[in-house]
């Protein structure tokens, strides 16, 4: 864990109280975001997001599968996060497992909605191919390569970027299959469908330090937090998921206030992220043309 002296702790807290943090940011300013897409050639889509010292990779892999019997008209999406020991020596062996599970479940909550898939940021019915028979399974893998706080927001952004980069092959279904047979599917390796990511929310984590809350906390700032709230918000300003972390209790009115602040912040983040993703995609396409 971060070893901070009492003086350093007070410096961080005092800075946040005066709206001037140790790296010169204001309370509600993000570190510069850097997005790179298409970095894993084997995956259907991939992206790397750097947020200061935090560096995460997300990849999306699409595989053909069978839909869940209770939701025959929907595809399946699963999210797993792995914390590499390169980010923090304590993640060695099984050390990172707890954090990995916490991040995976928080992301599932924020992006996938309820069990039925309603309210999900990803439109699950667009993944269906033959109702009740064949659908796309999306496997989203996150990898934390370097960690300097605010992993959840970074992973959320990386997944959004990776989904925008995702190309799902077009499929032809043989028409003559009878009702009880598994239909034959012909996966095209030339034509791809782009994934619609306008509905994918961004995640904003507000960390409460002292009486104030900050966005995009570094590891040092996170060590001083009393509690944190992660809100995932879509383009329309709707809340898609919410997670509270940290032991200290929060007053309900403060929570509501934090949500409205995060909604305001999310608009800027969404725009910034969209332009970064578009720039990364353009860059990626240039590379492809060169090669």
């Amino acid at each position, binding site marked *: 864990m971060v070893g901070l002296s009492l003086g350093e702790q007070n410096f961080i807290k005092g800075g946040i109280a005066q709206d001037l943090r140790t790296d010169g940011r204001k309370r509600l300013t993000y570190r510069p975001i850097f997005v790179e897409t298409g970095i894993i050639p084997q995956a259907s889509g991939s992206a790397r997001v750097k947020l200061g010292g935090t560096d995460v*990779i997300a990849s999306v892999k699409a*595989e053909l599968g069978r839909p869940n019997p209770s939701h025959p008209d929907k595809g399946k999406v699963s999210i797993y996060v*792995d914390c590499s020991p*390169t980010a923090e*020596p304590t993640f060695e*062996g099984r050390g990172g497992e707890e954090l990995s599970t916490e991040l995976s479940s928080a992301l599932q909550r924020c992006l996938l909605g309820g069990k039925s898939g309603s309210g999900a940021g990803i439109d699950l019915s667009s993944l269906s191919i033959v109702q009740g028979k064949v659908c796309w399974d999306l496997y989203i893998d996150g990898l934390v390569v370097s960690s300097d706080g605010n992993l959840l927001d970074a992973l959320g952004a990386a997944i959004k970027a990776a989904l925008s980069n995702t190309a799902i092959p077009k499929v032809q279904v043989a028409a003559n299959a009878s009702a009880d047979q598994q239909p034959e599917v012909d996966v095209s390796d030339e034509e791809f469908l782009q994934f619609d990511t306008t509905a994918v929310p961004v995640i904003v984590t507000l960390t409460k330090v002292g009486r104030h809350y900050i966005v995009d906390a570094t590891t040092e700032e996170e060590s001083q937090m009393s509690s944190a709230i992660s809100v995932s918000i879509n383009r329309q300003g709707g809340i898609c998921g919410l997670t509270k972390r940290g032991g200290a209790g929060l007053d309900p009115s403060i929570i509501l206030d934090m949500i409205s602040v995060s909604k305001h912040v999310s608009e800027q983040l969404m725009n910034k992220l969209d332009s970064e993703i578009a720039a990364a995609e353009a860059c990626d396409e240039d590379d492809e043309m060169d090669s």
Partner: protein
Amino acid sequence: MEYVNPEGLRLDGRRPMEMRQLRAEIGVISKADGSAVFEMGNTKVIAAVYGPREVQNRSQQLNDQALVRCEYSMANFSTGDRMRKPKGDRRSTEISLVIRQTMEACILTHLMPRSQIDIFVQVLQADGGTRSACINAATLALADAGIPMRDLVTSCSSGFLNGTPLLDLNYLEDSAGGADVTVGILPKLDKVTLLQMDAKLQMDTFENVMQLAIEGCKAVASYIREILLENTKQLESRRGI
């Protein structure tokens, strides 16, 4: 299957004695004491070094030398078919051990008694030769961390398919069932520190194949030296010397 066509070209268009494109970058993880990315064609590995620092587990402390530890892990998306493997399966434990032993042999551990050096390697893309790529990345990361070493260990693999010795096998060639010789050398001292081979080979063929791998290691060594020199020059100019 034909791994070398009549024109003498391999599946990915290389000549038998040609290596894949190398690319390396130093200092990719700001929090680590030393870090590097190493690419051999489509194989991409990231290594981070933490230390020398206080020993975390006192019972492992060595009073006359540094404790070197290594962990190898593969990202879920690194292979063609996505799979979710539990951490610490036998293959990664074995590779961790191999990397640790190879690196330990070249670190001047007696200069840092009662301290610990952690090497973490993470495979981002696997396309054959991950062992070699990991060792090369670890060497760069150790050099970036400023850890005293006897020499820069470098590694490269070679194989024997269709009666031809092949340098730097990719995944397809690696899984073809022929011999796969992974060699690690200390290029300046001209010593072999790592040698592994699966499958069987004639004695005299083995000599050729191993010699080819050693040549590969030397080529990697000169590339690594170039990258380190480039990095040092950049550091120099940033300091304004």
